[in-house]
């Protein structure tokens, strides 16, 4: 008649009553009364639990209703494990933090929240497809994998590329190539080893790749926080008259690149040779010309080659123009010059002459190329 659970509670209740009697007999005073009352209360509570257990028949569904084991909600397959509630909670946390911190975090939280809700929705829908979890998983996969794989791939690649770029920007120009040659060599070597030993377990390869990716991402994160190396684009030409008038080295000369990318399709090549002569070369115009013709209102690429033993610069004197400054006529003499070019070096500069050279232009002086400090080194620039 009594169920197993109710018998357990009856026994415990009787034990509590016996203990209360024994305590009351053995001790005197308030403590004895307190203990006896407490134990009697425990026995009453245990009897109450015994009654509940007796009434629900130890929560044994089969014992109460034999059909319930197959038809009740509790009898259904539980939903598959899902990380999306946790992801959704994370998104909610981002939204909350973003509200008080920064809009970027808020927007990221919204995105995470929406993704989590959508994923959870689809997973819940797929879990109801059948009682077969594997089939349900395949249903979900058919719907979501075409979306998830490209997105995850893109995100993964972005993280890797971004980490890679942070590392490259952190390393110095000198150490960067060395580091990446070593890393690339290690990757190639690892690939070769794996290819030569096809018996290596997939889990080992996956583990190494995971460690490598984590290393790359964590290093990238650290270097992103630390910041990029100091980078500055230094000019290769100057329009400062003081710089262009001398061969003294300035910061522009010290920092300017000596490398020239464009070597073809230049408007003219100006050469300073070992005899201290300056001459121009233009396609079809002979080897040694003291005059070069440049088209007006057009960017002309000029290459300067220094074949002398000195370090010099090429300066273009771009005329002299009378301009009105607050009612006073002032003569302006625009100049452009290369940085100092070492022996056997070359440098480019781009010139634009919006006005014709004299006599059909407004300039008071002819346009010329000169090498500062070498009086005889002059090439006239004709701009029709």
């Amino acid at each position, binding site marked *: 008649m009594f169920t197993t659970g109710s018998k357990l509670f009856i026994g415990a209740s009787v034990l509590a009553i016996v203990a209360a009697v024994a305590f009351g007999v053995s001790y005197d005073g308030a403590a004895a009364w307190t203990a006896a009352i407490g134990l009697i209360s425990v026995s009453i509570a245990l009897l109450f639990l015994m009654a509940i257990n007796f009434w629900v028949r130890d929560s044994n569904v089969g014992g109460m209703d034999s059909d319930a084991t197959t038809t009740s909600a509790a009898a259904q397959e539980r939903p598959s494990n899902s990380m999306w509630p946790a992801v959704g909670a994370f998104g909610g946390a981002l939204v909350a933090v973003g509200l008080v911190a920064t809009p970027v975090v808020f927007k990221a939280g919204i995105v995470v929240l929406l993704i989590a809700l959508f994923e959870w929705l689809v997973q819940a829908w797929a879990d109801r497809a059948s009682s077969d979890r594997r089939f349900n998983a395949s249903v979900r996969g058919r719907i979501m994998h075409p979306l998830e794989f490209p997105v995850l791939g893109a995100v993964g690649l972005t993280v890797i590329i971004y980490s890679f770029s942070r590392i490259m920007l952190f390393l110095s120009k000198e150490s960067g190539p060395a580091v990446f040659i070593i890393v690339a060599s290690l990757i190639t070597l690892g690939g070769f080893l794996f290819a030569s030993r096809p018996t290596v377990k997939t889990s080992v390869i996956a583990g190494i790749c995971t460690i490598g990716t984590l290393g790359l991402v964590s290093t990238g994160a650290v270097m992103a926080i630390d910041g990029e190396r100091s980078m500055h684009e230094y000019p290769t030409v100057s329009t400062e008259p003081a710089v262009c008038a001398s061969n003294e080295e300035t910061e522009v000369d010290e920092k300017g690149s000596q490398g020239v990318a464009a070597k073809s399709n230049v408007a003219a090549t100006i050469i300073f040779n070992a005899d201290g002569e300056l001459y121009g070369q233009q396609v079809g115009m002979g080897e040694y010309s003291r005059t070069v013709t440049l*088209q007006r209102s*057009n960017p002309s690429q000029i290459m300067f080659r220094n074949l002398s033993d000195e370090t010099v610069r090429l300066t273009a004197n771009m005329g002299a123009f009378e301009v009105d400054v607050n009612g006073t006529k002032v003569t302006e003499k625009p100049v452009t010059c290369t940085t100092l070019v070492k022996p056997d070096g070359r440098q480019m500069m781009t010139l634009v002459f919006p006005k014709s050279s004299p006599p059909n232009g407004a300039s008071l002086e002819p346009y010329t190329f000169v090498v500062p400090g070498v009086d005889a080194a002059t090439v006239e620039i004709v701009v029709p």
Partner: protein
Amino acid sequence: MLGLTAASAAVLAGCAKDAPQDTWQPKGENAQKIHDLQWPVFLVAGIVGVIVMVAVGYAVVRFRDKGQPMPEQSHGKPALEIALTILPALILVGVGIPTVSTIFDLADTSDTECIVNVTGQQWWWEYDYPAQEGCGGISDPIVTSGQLVIPANTNVLLRLTSRDVIHSFWIPALNGKKDTVPGRVHTLRMQANQPGIYAGQCTEFCGLSHANMKMEAVALNPDDFQTWVANQLESYVAPEAGSQAALGEAAFTANCAYCHQVNGLSSTAPDGTVTPVLANPDQFVVSGSAPNLTHLMTRNTFAGATWDLLTDECRDRVWNASPEEFGALYLQGVTAECLNAVDLREWIRNAPAKKPMYASDAQKANSGGKVRGMPALGLNETQIDQIIAYLLERN
């Protein structure tokens, strides 16, 4: 029937007699080199094309689905595959060798006898001749536009660039096309076998009036070219005082000289001070340039070679002249009797109405207040008459 009609029309279109830009009629050794390469390539390509089409047609008809059982399926026929790989490779090598050789020949600049700088801008071409030894005795730079004048039977090297966007210079009778790119100088050989005019067209879409950006090359025999050079270097001759042309000079100075240079033109202040009139197109035009009109009437075209300065009758006389007579006729320039005053007057009256250009105030607002092309100047008919009288003396 419709397809047959369209095909016939396409074929017959190739039979046009008046086709000055026909790529199959070379008139210079550079164009001849291209021609000597293109016809065998077309021949080979045509034969291959016909063979392929016949083979495909045969396969389509012969092996069409007639309910027959699926034939035996086999994988690969090495002999056939190797043959079909080697044969096209051999054809390509056969085409490639003369092609590369021709490319190198056309890029050669070592035999240059004459240099011309060519600058493209929306929508006309400027030609400037640097001072150089030989080449008709060009002792000072010459600047002109519309018509590229060169000595016949002379290796001329064009140094091409652009002031605004990419254009492409192409006179099919004399050579292939070459892009003109801002900041870069490209070279193009030019040689004409005999005196005459050779038409061309910008072949890189360059904006609103790309279709109106034409060009003409004029080849003169060396003596005539020398005469042309000497004429271009002649000093400015002011109009006779009190004449219609003199009034035109004043009108030109007041309205046109902001952009158009006329070498030697000067103005005299009330105190007698003489000041050269220097154009400043860089302040008004996007490209920073406008045609130099010093010797406008020595050329036969204006507005980017879009219109003739000659009447139809005079133009036909020049274009159809024999090589022996051509030089003398061309050097006559534009006379009052031969002037195509109708188009010139319309142009001066309202240029944007005649040739699409970005010249209105609204359009200028999008380009820093500068025009692309020539704006309407708002001149009255009297001023136009005076300016035309003045320009008629720019020969």
